[in-house]
């Protein structure tokens, strides 16, 4: 009696594990694997740039994923996010654009305070290769 009961419990546990395991697999299967990556943006004066939005535009990839992006804090540091916040970026080659949006007065729409050439992937001229290991990138310096 107790033996068959324990076997029953064991079977139920295994079934539950298999079902939940397959569900975990389903929910994330459409995501490309990402590795955390962080960097720094320095202004023309060499000081850290606050509120700069860095966007990584993938080149030479057939994978589909949202463009990795990050916004700098007061120390000029940013962490890349692709799906969830600060989850990093897939490995590969990227062109980088940098913008800095903020408001001159609280009631007017925000404007980009960096040169327009930096906002376009065709003209920004910043190329970055992300590896599969955790990357701390070379600081981007605004010229």
């Amino acid at each position: 009696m107790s033996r068959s009961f324990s076997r029953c419990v064991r079977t139920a546990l295994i079934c539950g594990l298999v079902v939940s395991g397959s569900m975990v697999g389903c929910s994330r299967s459409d995501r490309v694997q990402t590795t955390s990556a962080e960097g720094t943006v320095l202004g023309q004066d060499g000081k850290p740039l606050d509120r700069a939005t860095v966007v990584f535009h993938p080149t030479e990839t057939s994978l589909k994923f949202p463009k990795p992006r990050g916004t700098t804090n007061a120390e000029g540091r940013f962490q890349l996010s692709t799906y969830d916040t600060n989850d990093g970026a897939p490995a590969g080659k990227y062109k980088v654009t940098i913008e800095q949006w903020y408001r001159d007065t609280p009631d007017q729409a925000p404007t980009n305070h960096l040169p327009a050439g930096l906002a376009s992937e065709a003209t920004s001229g910043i190329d970055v290769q992300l590896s599969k290991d955790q990357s701390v990138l070379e600081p981007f310096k605004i010229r």
Partner: protein
Amino acid sequence: MRLQSLAHRNRLRSAFTLVELLVVIAIIGILVGLLLPAVQAAREAARRMSCSNNIRQIELAFQNFHSANKYFPSNIRPDAVSTVRVRWATYLLPHIEQQSLYSKIDLKKNWSSVVPNADGSLNYDLFGSKIPIYECPSNPESGRVQDGSPPPDTPVWQARVANGDYSGYYGVSPQMATLGLVDANSARNDNGAMSKTANLKFASFTDGTSNTIRLVESSGRPHVYRLGRKVIDATPGSSVRVNGGGWCRPASELNVLLGVSADGASYPGPQVINTTNGIPLGSTYPDPYFGVDGTGQAYSFHSSGITAAFVDGSARYLSSNIDVRVYAGMISRNGGEINKDIE
């Protein structure tokens, strides 16, 4: 001997056995388990219909306002020099049978004014009036007075104005174009159906009124909800909250379309509907990026979508999985987008 066994059996039959009771309870449990989700789904469907009805009534009020005034109400400053800004929801009051409230409000003062009006009433108190058609019944925060004025107006943030769930867009953030999510012709700060500077007319909607969104839902503000869970409770006095929520507040407009990450915690990003109801402000106000404008996002407590009102007077249900490019095209009133079908 036989008599004894008969008596024994009679004693047994006088009550239910434990097994019988357990079986009955189990059957009832299964039936309730089957029925309860169905009942809840039916109640939610009814609330969704009521929400759709509300947003359509508001849209009809917009149409009636245009018939009477030859322009649509916007979040303008009634006189160009002052610091007063009045939201469309206030101008619409006479068109939703709230004339008595409208006539008490002094439009020359801000919504948060505590300077007595001619009849002694305060604008700040008048805007504590709950307007049921400005709220979605699925919002667990509906019927509450929990939004208020940010710190520069009053020493601490107080919960004093009544909730409103329906908001429009001023435009589409150009950052969405940098992310490759929308086309450049859609991405302008001032191409939405709401304006901070001008009173729009029918002629302003060159993409067609049936292709342009006027209002969507943004529920649960000023608390921060992400993916159905309340993650930040905005208690009065705290500075961390979504800027917006009160129906009278111009900051309750959704500002420009700016997506968030899949977890709803950072911007910009590709998620635009039902990921979060807004971006929490930090301790600095006005925020360097959002300024005095709202930080809300399109968000409802319905399953997998939001109710939206279009400028032609129709109410439609938009799926959470809508293509960002199509959604941005529907927000823009003059971008010349052709791919505007929901399906």
